[in-house]
């Protein structure tokens, strides 16, 4: 069996800490830029253009219907091969992050779309009947109400992303799961797994708790 869990943790905690920081950072980048991209996708989805609708539907269906790991491999190996210019501009690390962002954007666009759809149609009608422009209706009437549904769902997406980023370790990126590879070189095979699981659990449980607090605050203002 070798060393115990506590012993390993006390000896290598800086490695785990760096890994956890990497995980939080990659998940944040993915959701942050995924939200920007996802918002654009959602706006396209709400527009009246049928062509745009069809393109977006395919985009969302393909991204949500295929494994993230496959998307990461395509971004990592295929894209720089198909577009050699990417090698000059981006690091290999970026291609994996790009896959995370694109993956997140598909989920976020659906979160935003359903958040907007959750606002009663009468709100739009009342706003438009007062002569509010379409953009004012969206920014002053619909979004402030939709945001109560969107923010907690985005936070949940962040939690999901924290777990999903574990796949980035496959590409030698320094996140929590990658610490397993590092410590395996020191003949530590089982201890890091439980420590890693424990750290993931702490992160997701704490974040879930924060989300519940946020939802409760929104509920009060209803």
């Amino acid at each position: 069996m070798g060393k115990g869990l506590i012993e390993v943790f006390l000896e290598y905690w800086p490695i785990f800490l760096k890994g956890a920081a990497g995980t939080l950072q990659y998940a944040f980048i993915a959701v942050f830029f995924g939200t920007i991209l996802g918002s654009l996708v959602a706006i396209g989805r709400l527009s009246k253009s049928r062509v745009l609708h069809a393109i977006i539907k395919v985009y969302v269906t393909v991204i949500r219907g295929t494994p993230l790991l496959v998307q990461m491999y395509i971004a990592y190996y295929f894209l720089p091969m198909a577009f050699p210019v990417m090698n000059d501009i981006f690091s290999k690390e970026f291609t994996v992050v790009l896959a995370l962002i694109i993956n997140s954007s598909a989920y976020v666009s659906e979160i935003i779309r359903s958040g907007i759809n959750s606002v009663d149609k009468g709100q739009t009608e009342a706003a438009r009947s007062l002569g509010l422009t379409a953009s004012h209706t969206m920014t002053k009437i619909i979004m402030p109400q939709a945001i109560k549904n969107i923010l907690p769902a985005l936070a949940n997406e962040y939690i999901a992303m924290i777990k999903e980023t574990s796949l980035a370790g496959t590409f030698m990126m320094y996140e929590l799961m990658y610490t397993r590879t590092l410590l395996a070189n020191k003949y530590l095979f089982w201890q890091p797994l439980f420590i890693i699981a424990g750290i993931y659990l702490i992160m997701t449980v704490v974040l879930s708790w924060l989300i519940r607090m946020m939802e409760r605050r929104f509920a009060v203002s209803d």
Partner: protein
Amino acid sequence: MTETNNVLIETVDLRKDFGDLKVLKGINEKIIKGEVVSIIGPSGGGKSTFLRCLNLLEEPTGGQVIFEGNVLDSKSTNLDLHRQKIGMVFQQFNVFPHLSVMDNITLAPVLEKKIPKDQAEKEAMELLRTVGLDDKANEYPRKLSGGQKQRLAIVRAMAMHPDVMLFDEPTSALDPEMVKDVLDVIKKLAESGMTCVIVTHEMGFAREISDRVLFIDDGIIAEEGTPEELFEHPQNPRTKEFLSKVL
């Protein structure tokens, strides 16, 4: 030709389909400035759809809606600008729950008419006073009763200084004891000279305040006339049948 100049809203062969369902089958109607017109008729007959076509909340399938000489259902028309002059009150109130009573009223004038906020608020307070809600200015709509919400919705529309007010069954979602308060507000408005088009199931009310009553059934105006003509001496058998059920 003076009569044409006084026409506020005109519909020409107005038609509306929902899929295969023909809801409006060609309505020609003129609303005159200052007129109070009630629209009655059986559910599903097209009266709400007709009203909602007047400010293009429903996009007509065919025909025209002409408001103050402007064809509304035309691509070149700035619809938002005309809608500012067409107030609308909904069955479900549709007040903005995330805004205070005051902000519900001042939002559109400040945003779209660029009225200074303090001036808009001053005017809003006066409007609130007229409907007995001045003590609620800083409350949020969740604290209001249905009748209060509807009165708020009415003054919210009034704050834009519309040339006409459209009412879509304004009392149908209210508890019975709240109906009178809302009807009183509408009545005061009608008596002040505001042009009103009111879809309603309140026959007594329609009879009392209207200059003209339209009976819409099966997508057409089956009969129209003064309240007396329509309620006392209906000509169309369908009008007779409808009135015998509701009166």
